[in-house]
């Protein structure tokens, strides 16, 4: 979760002498109530009225006289209330203007167009709240006065993936968390028919119906409704989005939805999914691998849900702080090749699969700015407890604290890191031109309307077909594969002599009968126990992306060679393979060494070993 849960309050509020202007004039104590409730105002003379102080309530103590007050260095008029950067005191209005200016880069880059349907990935943390507030401010609705310029007429949905159970919370606590997040989103101004808030449990990643590729867009409303897709309310029909009404009608929690038997069945299914999620996460012994797996699952579910809703753009709240830490942590995970794709403004790698483009509009905003933004508006973050108690064992947590520590002494650290990352070659799917756009040069608006009315997938599909060739992606983390990895995969798959194996996006065609057999877990086990699938069948299975690891069923020593080949032919990147799926086991024996050596030979890499039981637990729809 990148919602700033590691941020230290004291550090962020900078209660130094320069924070003095946060006090109301005359040293009158401003009541906390006033501060938080009036926080939404945007008057540039915020603090001069004495009582209407926008300062964070806990910074009251630091100033005691007007003499210490500073004027905002931007507008030179209002009194500064925050100190985002050293020697740059800002008033609330200028802080918000700065943040929203950065978010508005979406518009100047033509990444957010009229009639777009955007989903905000909302964790409930500081940065996603900031993002949501700013997006709502950019939006033109029916009530927007005509003279307000620069607003865009797009529709918005707030999506929260509730992963509370993955953090060890009980089902009840998870539901409470979901409600709290929804309330937080509503405090930001979302809610109502025009900006619905949806909470989706992470275990839904196991729902085949939800994540199936949408072959036929007409099916969507029926599917979503019939399966009782989303637990959420306030989803009203929005013009051009007929799916919504039915989604709401089908939701499980609404009073009249379905018979009791139906509900029981749903509950049972849901519990089963939760159990599967727990088992999956527990099968990854390495804390870092577990966190990464969680993140990949979350992103995948987010994209899938958004695609089902007809969303064509997902907006993520990753701040500069988070991205800088990610540069470090991804480097430490050996993902140097894929790294530049992570920190760009635009990412359309999933568009070919009918999923929305991903935008990171907060990438220029620091976490500190986001925290101040929320504080000054009285917005409280909703955060999950950080469960990796041994954060010393998590590379993500280590990288975050490393960057934070440097940032304290050298405030340019963040942007230096990001500048370094910007010097790396991004991928074709990051190019601004890669974003599918309406084709007709004239009458853009009409074309866009037609495109979005139809839902997200189509206009894109044919665009993407003619677009630049995208690299092959890892099945799990969707990172582009290096040439070395692709060669290793091809080489490992070759001995199996499977005609249908084509690493690449055109994999669909050749599904052997054996591969079909392996489509469901139960069947896999049966097949594994009775008659082992032949080598070609296994390779076909992995080629199909089923991610069953036959070796997990066939674990005898004699099968070592087979296992080597099968593992390596599954289209995973080296990092996922080594760090999530096949984390080393302590007493692995000779097979470990042989396998390690083999990986080293084929991928210029050594040390990771043997399979764990993670492999068969993955959701089945992680396929190319």
């Amino acid at each position: 979760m990148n919602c700033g849960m590691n941020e230290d309050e004291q550090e962020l509020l900078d209660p130094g002498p320069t924070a003095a202007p946060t006090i109301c004039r005359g040293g009158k104590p401003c009541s906390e109530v006033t501060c938080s409730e009036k926080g939404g105002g945007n008057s540039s003379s915020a603090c001069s009225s004495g009582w209407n102080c926008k300062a964070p309530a806990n910074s009251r103590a630091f100033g005691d006289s007007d003499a210490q007050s500073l004027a905002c260095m931007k507008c030179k008029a209002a009194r500064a209330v925050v100190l985002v950067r050293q020697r740059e005191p800002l008033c609330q209005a200028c802080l918000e203007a700065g943040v929203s200016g950065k978010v508005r880069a979406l518009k100047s880059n033509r990444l957010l167009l009229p009639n777009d349907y955007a989903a905000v990935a909302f964790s409930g943390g500081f940065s996603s709240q900031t993002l949501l507030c700013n997006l709502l401010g950019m939006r033109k609705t029916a009530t927007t006065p005509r003279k307000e310029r620069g607003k865009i007429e797009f529709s918005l949905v707030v999506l929260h993936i509730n992963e509370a159970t993955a953090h060890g919370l009980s089902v009840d606590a998870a539901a409470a968390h979901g409600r709290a997040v929804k309330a937080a989103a509503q405090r930001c101004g979302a809610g109502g028919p025009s900006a619905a808030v949806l909470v989706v449990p992470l275990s839904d990643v196991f729902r085949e119906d939800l994540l199936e590729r949408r072959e036929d867009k007409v099916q969507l409303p029926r599917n979503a409704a019939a399966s009782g897709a989303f637990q959420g309310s306030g989803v009203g029909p929005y013009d051009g989005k007929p799916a919504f009404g039915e989604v709401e009608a089908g939701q499980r929690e609404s009073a009249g939805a379905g018979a009791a038997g139906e509900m029981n069945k749903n509950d049972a299914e849901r519990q089963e999914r939760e159990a599967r999620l727990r088992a999956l996460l527990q099968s990854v012994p390495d804390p870092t691998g577990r966190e990464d797996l969680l993140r990949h699952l979350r992103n995948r579910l987010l994209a899938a849900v958004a695609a089902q809703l007809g969303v064509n753009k997902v907006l993520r709240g990753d701040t500069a702080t988070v991205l800088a830490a990610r540069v470090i942590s991804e480097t430490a995970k050996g993902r140097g090749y894929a790294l530049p794709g992570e920190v760009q403004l635009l990412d359309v790698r999933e568009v070919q699969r009918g999923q929305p483009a991903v935008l990171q509009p907060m990438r220029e905003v620091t976490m500190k700015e986001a925290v101040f933004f929320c504080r000054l508006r009285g917005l409280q973050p909703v955060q999950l407890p950080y469960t990796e108690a041994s954060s010393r064992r998590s590379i993500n947590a280590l990288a975050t604290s490393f960057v934070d520590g440097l940032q304290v002494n050298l405030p340019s650290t963040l942007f230096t890191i990001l500048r370094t990352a910007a010097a790396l070659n991004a991928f074709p799917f990051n190019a601004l031109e890669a974003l599918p756009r309406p084709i007709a040069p004239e009458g853009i608006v009409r074309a866009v309307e037609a495109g979005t009315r139809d839902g997200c997938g189509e206009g894109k599909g044919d665009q993407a077909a003619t677009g630049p060739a995208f690299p092959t992606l890892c099945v799990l983390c969707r990172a582009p594969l290096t040439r070395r990895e692709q060669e290793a995969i091809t080489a490992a798959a070759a001995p199996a002599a499977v005609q249908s194996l084509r690493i690449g996006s055109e994999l669909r065609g050749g599904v052997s009968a054996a591969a079909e057999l392996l489509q469901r877990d139960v069947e896999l086990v049966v097949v594994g126990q009775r008659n082992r699938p032949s080598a070609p069948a296994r390779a076909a299975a992995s080629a199909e992306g089923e991610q069953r690891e036959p070796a997990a069923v066939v674990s005898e020593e004699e099968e070592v060679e087979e296992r080597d080949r099968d593992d390596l032919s599954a289209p995973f990147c080296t990092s996922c393979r080594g760090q999530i799926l096949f984390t080393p086991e302590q007493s692995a024996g000779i097979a470990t060494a042989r396998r390690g050596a083999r990986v080293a030979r084929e991928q210029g890499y050594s040390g990771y070993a043997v399979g764990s039981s993670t492999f068969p637990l993955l959701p089945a729809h992680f396929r190319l």
Partner: protein
Amino acid sequence: MAPRSCIKCQSSKAMLKRPKTQEQVCRGCFFTLFEEEVHETIVQTKLFKPGERVAIAASGGKDSTVLAHIMTTLNARYGYGLDLFLLSIDEGIAGYRDDSLETVKRNELQYGIPLKVVSYKDLYGWTMDEIVAQIGTKNNCTFCGVFRRQALDRGAVLAGANKIATGHNADDVAETVLLNILRGDVPRLGRCANIITGEDSSLPRVKPFKYAYEKEIVLYAYYKKLDYFSTECVYAPFAARGFAREFIKDLEAARPMAIIDVIRSAEDFTFTSASEDKLPQPRTCERCGYISSQPVCKACVLLEGLNRGLPRLGVSRTRGRRGEKAGLHPDVERVATAQAVSAVKWTASGAGGSKEAQGNSNHDTVEVAAQLGSSSSVAHVPAVVVSSTGQSEGDGVCASAGGASAAGLPEEARADLGPGLAGCSAAGAADNDTVLG
């Protein structure tokens, strides 16, 4: 807990858990594995060609001692056909370098390969002790790092080497990668993970230990009972660079393969053409002729600062007009050329072993140095040994900051390894030639 048997040979008792792979192996298998991995690295990356004369940068610390041992072993075992010798640099730090040089001299006998020593005093006219006396203990590592890098090359040229092998290990490389990311130094980030640097130049540098973990090097030295010197540089406590190293150690504790992963990431980085264009083209220093990215190389700038009594010159951030280093005296160039002439003379006399260190830069050119090498026969130039291993892409921060390195052996590792290791890691802790330049 029942004693486990080694997973390699299955016969003897496992003595240690390899820090890199967590495999439990016996002592003999560990030696074999470690040596074979280095051999594999050398063969796969084609580090050496038969008949080359290779200078092993030797400080007397654990990395270079193990490097010298492994290189002689592998050279004999696999017939690389290399002409090896030890090259040390004497920075002139009393209480540190003089002792470590003794270690190197013993190594010379133990491994039967010749030793050359080059000293700062000879090359620059200053010892580190004198420099510190003038500038204090802040930034002194900048001088040491910059000078050492050049001294190593000069010493190697003097001795007629084709290549320099340094003892940089995986931890060092990973640390440099991180530092370059943090500094936004894209050009260096691009090459710091290369196993060969300066491939086009006449004197490439190679890192046979690029994939070898520091802890394994310490273990190897310990179990082989190699004779190495493990005292921290007396000026090291004042050096920076520790935070990145600490982070690397944290990463290693969280996931042992992370160090290799960092290196792999750096190998996979590809840079945009825009940033490639900005790479400074290598050129030669207009004063000393040494390779430099600026009109005047850093060593010359620092040296001028020292000689003119302006020790901040070249240390604090300065930028003059026309891209020149600010504060350089326009006349110095002439002086330097005159010095070069006298340096040649000095060469002749210096062959006799008496070098009067002229106060000003008797910082001769490469050509001069080369002459020196040929005319006054290598044998005589008392090998200057560059004692520590600067790196050509060096950041010049500090040579000895790596000292903390092996201290990172976590408790559990020690426990796994039995009581013997505790002393070893403590010893290793002090060793400091790991600094990536």
